């Protein structure tokens, strides 16, 4: 069914363009022309009907939707400064103007549709989706598309993966092993939270304060966040320390707390964090003390099942004890007569009310702290814009955030965020909008600044990066690449992963990077790993490239079977090979790259296909080429 629709649309796409020879095309600078000129001509062809092709009813229906103006043309980002009411734009464009920096042009519709599909859902758009969007005429078609994507199931898959990374939901790390069922429980919790638009402060509170047994209780997986803090080979304080370090990192963006749990900031964080250098280890212990009532233990499932599961229970009664000489951190010894540390929130000095559950108190304090909102919006900013307003996003310095109260000159410090007022405004509005993550994403992807092109006309200066004057490209996640090949090749594999989790076809649906999709050393697993999806432990997801990635895109059977017409996985070409060369080229580009070829690309492709004796092989070569094009591998 899907292939049928695609073929129809492709037929529509080649109206009036039946000439098999390479057309005379203007020689243009590929850097500047990019897709524009060709886009315009292609849309014109679609609109005007053409000559020789019998139109099916469906084709006419699609063609009827297409009306001028074509979606291609870029407009200058600068021209849109004055008419954007988007809060982000007002701050960013003002900063660009102050710096005398011209922003990049606004994306074409072709650029935008692929970008926002990948960013919000992790999938490339189908040819139908691309053409429908590009040829849409509504003034609100971009924001309409955003709404459509935010409501999609693919959105849920993508952001479940994102939070799985952030919370490090994995069945094995350097410290402990949980079990797939446990990972699945946390996965299910995250997925349901994303699917139901759970306010993020609520989600944070639930995760920070969760109790109970895990593993075999699918409704209670969120306590695995606390289990992940287990440190072996040391006293309980090692565990409290790691658990609260994880909380500070994920929910406050303050990874330096981890440093402070070993030593005072003076010296260690001097010159790095104005806040951190004034903090003491005692203060950090005050944070860890919020975990001091929490016992994280494991037990065998039953006398006949030696698998162990974990239990998080607030059964302790003591504050943080200064009584260790051994463990994974320096000794914790009494300070004068002080032998225990009460829970004390490091950013305010607040303490739990009498009788209040410590972790619930911590959860309330954190989600009531503007720093929680700042850290959250900054994490998402870093994802969508390629760098945080504070970057790396977990290195917040709380004493360098207030633009109305900047660090004294004598300290040698300046404000930390690249745009402090924007960060505060976004955080404030995030709170006012009840920690609604979709509100945040709408603000971002509907902004003119997010919609700036990755290309920059004129000389780019790296020093402008913090102005976000152009789009920062990102290499697709491993899962996105897998799924882009799956969607475009129209060959949908089936993977069986873990018990009680049904077979799936899209890598974005894997609950964790282990146990997927075909065993620890399986073929597809290795392919995915080479694109640095990380292990949710000591290897974070990375955008780096590598030789292995190039080898795997050029030669691996995962790609080669999709480009070969003789294999079941080579499902795309058979539906197109009977078309004219022009239709074939357009169809391949549209399926794989979500756009039509540029004049130069088209000319080259048609030339390669011109010999009937090698045409079949050249078509496979072209498909291979598209899977290895950098604009397939990157979101631009």
């Amino acid at each position: 069914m899907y292939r049928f629709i695609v073929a129809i649309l492709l037929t529509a796409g080649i109206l009036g363009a039946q000439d098999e020879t390479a057309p005379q095309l203007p020689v243009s600078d590929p850097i500047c022309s990019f897709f524009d000129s060709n886009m315009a001509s292609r849309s014109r062809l679609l609109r005007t009907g053409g000559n020789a092709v019998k139109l099916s009813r469906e084709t006419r229906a699609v063609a009827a939707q297409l009306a001028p103006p074509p979606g291609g043309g870029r407009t200058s980002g600068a021209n849109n400064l004055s008419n954007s009411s988007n809060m982000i734009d007002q701050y960013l464009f003002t900063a660009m103007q102050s710096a005398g920096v011209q922003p990049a042009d606004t994306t074409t519709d072709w650029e935008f549709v692929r970008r926002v599909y990948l960013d919000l859902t992790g999938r490339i758009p189908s040819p139908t989706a691309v053409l429908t969007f590009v040829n849409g005429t509504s003034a609100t078609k971009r924001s309409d598309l955003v709404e459509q994507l935010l409501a999609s199931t693919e959105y849920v898959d993508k952001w479940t993966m994102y939070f799985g990374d952030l919370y490090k939901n994995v069945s094995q790390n350097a410290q402990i092993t949980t079990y797939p069922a446990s990972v699945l429980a946390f996965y299910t919790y995250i997925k349901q939270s994303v699917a139901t638009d759970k306010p993020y402060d609520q989600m944070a509170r639930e995760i920070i304060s969760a109790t109970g047994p895990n593993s075999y209780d699918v409704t209670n997986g969120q306590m695995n966040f606390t289990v992940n803090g287990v440190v072996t080979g040391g006293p309980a304080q090692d565990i409290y320390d790691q658990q609260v370090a994880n909380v500070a990192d994920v929910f406050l963006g303050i990874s330096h707390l981890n440093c402070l749990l070993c030593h005072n900031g003076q010296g260690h964080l001097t010159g790095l964090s104005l806040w951190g250098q004034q903090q003491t280890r005692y203060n950090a212990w005050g944070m860890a003390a919020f975990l001091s009532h929490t016992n994280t233990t494991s037990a065998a499932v039953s006398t006949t099942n030696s698998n162990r599961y974990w239990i998080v229970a607030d059964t302790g009664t003591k504050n943080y004890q200064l009584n260790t000489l051994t463990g994974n951190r320096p000794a914790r010894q009494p300070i004068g007569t002080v032998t225990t540390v009460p829970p004390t929130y490091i950013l305010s000095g607040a303490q739990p009310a009498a009788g209040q559950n410590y972790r619930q108190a911590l959860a309330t304090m954190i989600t009531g702290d503007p720093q929680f909102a700042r850290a959250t919006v900054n994490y998402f900013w870093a994802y969508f814009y390629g760098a945080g307003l504070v970057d790396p996003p977990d290195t917040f310095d709380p004493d360098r955030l207030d633009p109305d109260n900047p660090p004294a000159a004598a300290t040698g410090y300046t404000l930390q965020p690249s745009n402090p007022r924007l960060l505060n405004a976004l955080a404030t509005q995030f709170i006012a909008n009840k920690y609604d993550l979709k509100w945040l994403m709408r603000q971002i992807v509907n902004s003119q600044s997010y919609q700036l092109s990755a290309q920059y006309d004129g000389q780019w200066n790296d020093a402008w990066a913090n102005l976000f004057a152009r789009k920062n490209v990102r290499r697709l996640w491993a899962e996105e690449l897998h799924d882009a090949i799956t969607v475009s090749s129209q060959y949908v594999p089936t993977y069986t992963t873990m018990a009680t989790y049904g077979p799936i076809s899209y890598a974005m649906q894997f609950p964790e990077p282990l146990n997927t999709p075909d065993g620890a050393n399986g073929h597809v697993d290795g392919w995915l790993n080479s694109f640095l999806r990380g292990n949710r432990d000591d290897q974070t997801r990375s955008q780096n490239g590598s030789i292995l990635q190039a080898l795997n895109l050029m030669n691996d059977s995962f790609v080669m079977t999709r480009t070969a017409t003789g294999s079941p996985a080579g499902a795309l070409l058979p539906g197109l090979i009977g078309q004219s060369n022009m239709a074939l080229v357009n169809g391949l580009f549209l399926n794989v790259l979500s756009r039509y070829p540029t004049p130069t690309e088209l000319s080259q492709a048609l030339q390669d296909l011109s010999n009937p004796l090698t045409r079949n092989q050249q078509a496979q070569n072209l498909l291979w080429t598209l899977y290895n094009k950098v604009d397939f591998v990157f979101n631009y």
Partner: protein
Amino acid sequence: MIGNNQTKYTPSREAFFKRPHLSRRSFFQIGGAGLVGSWMALSPERAKACSIQTSSPVTMQNTAKNVIFILLAGAPSHVDTFDLKVLNGTTPAKFAPTVINGVNWPTGILPQLGQQLNNMVLVRSMQSHALVHSLGQTWTQIGRNPSAALGNIAPNIGSVCALELDKQRQPGQVFPAFLALNSASAVGNGYFPATYAPFRVVPSTSGISNTTNSLGQTQFNNLWSELHQIDDPLRLNSPLGQPVSDYDEFYTGANEMMYNSVVTKAFTYSSTDSVRYGNTSFGNACLVAKQVLASNQGTRFIQITLGSWDMHVDIYGTQNPKGNNLFTMCPQFDTGVGQMMTDLSASGLLEDTLIVMVGEFGRTVGPVTPALGRDHLLQQTVVFAGGGIKGGQVIGQTLPDGSNTAVFGWTPPGGQPQRYVRPEDVEATIYSAVGINWTTERCDDPLGRGFQYVPTTDPVQYGPINELWS
């Protein structure tokens, strides 16, 4: 050398490994830290925090060019192997203990290594910090506490060596600097660029997977040239930005490894050689390691992992001789490493190549447990060989039962009191051997805290075991 795989299209570009291929900006984008922000964060205040990066004046041994790091995962029993403690009624007669050069050696299970003792140094005063396998294995590979603040972004020792030694890469050398054989779960590059990640290969007679294309070389040449003809406007000096241009460089590096007779020669092997190395997966890894070093193509650090040493049950195979026990494990280990050392020695490469053999900890001593096995114990032995060290030594001495160190036998740095050898000291020893200043502190880590090659925040100061050379 590179194969005639650029028939139609010959871009004039620097080969991937011949240049400072990743821009400064790319380098700082690691760790998922965003694209350019970390680079921008190298502001004066950041530089100030890094002012301590100046290395202390230290004397590096600098006698080795390459490292082969053999991780004995699962933790072998030291008292049955490198620190043999013969116990009547426990030690199997087939161990055939023999005194070689004054070392009591289990000739029955490690015959070839017994003949290499004059090239080896047994350091018997080592203790690990922890008794959890995954934690200990990570600790051994990164030379620091995985639980520490920088533990989860720390690179493998091999990645540090790769980054440092890649500066010496010669024109035409096309192999990755860090090769990991049979090491699917090797610790990776941490926050370092992917260039210095372990290049993971499971040796097979057909060489490295995906260095050939199923369509054949001629067709691949067409693909390659068609790709560049159609995509170079976006690949070269990319209008989409530096990361895209960088990505093209990885393609160039990949292409150099394809249909390359040098690659084929180093990574494929004959069944005759395989049999000589024991005809095991581990033996094949040792064989390939030897061949890769002989090819002199820029690989400087090779990790080989040999697992299944975690013998809690039936360690001597008395119940199940064909199960996993010392009599099934030791021959593949002994034959693989022994043949490798023989071949490296014959070609003169052993002098240039430091071999390190270490598990994540040791095992309990005395009579075996009721399960006829041995459990986890901190005390262990680390073995060094080649690389310009003075072989034929034993450093340190354990108690008669092997349960603890009796004599440390080495001088820790900085006039510290005598103490155990730790994984951090092994790390420092490796760095010193290949001429890397182990006190180096980088200022490019994502936390901005400063990343020390060998951590100094612990109360003790770690350093190389210089006694290996004296």
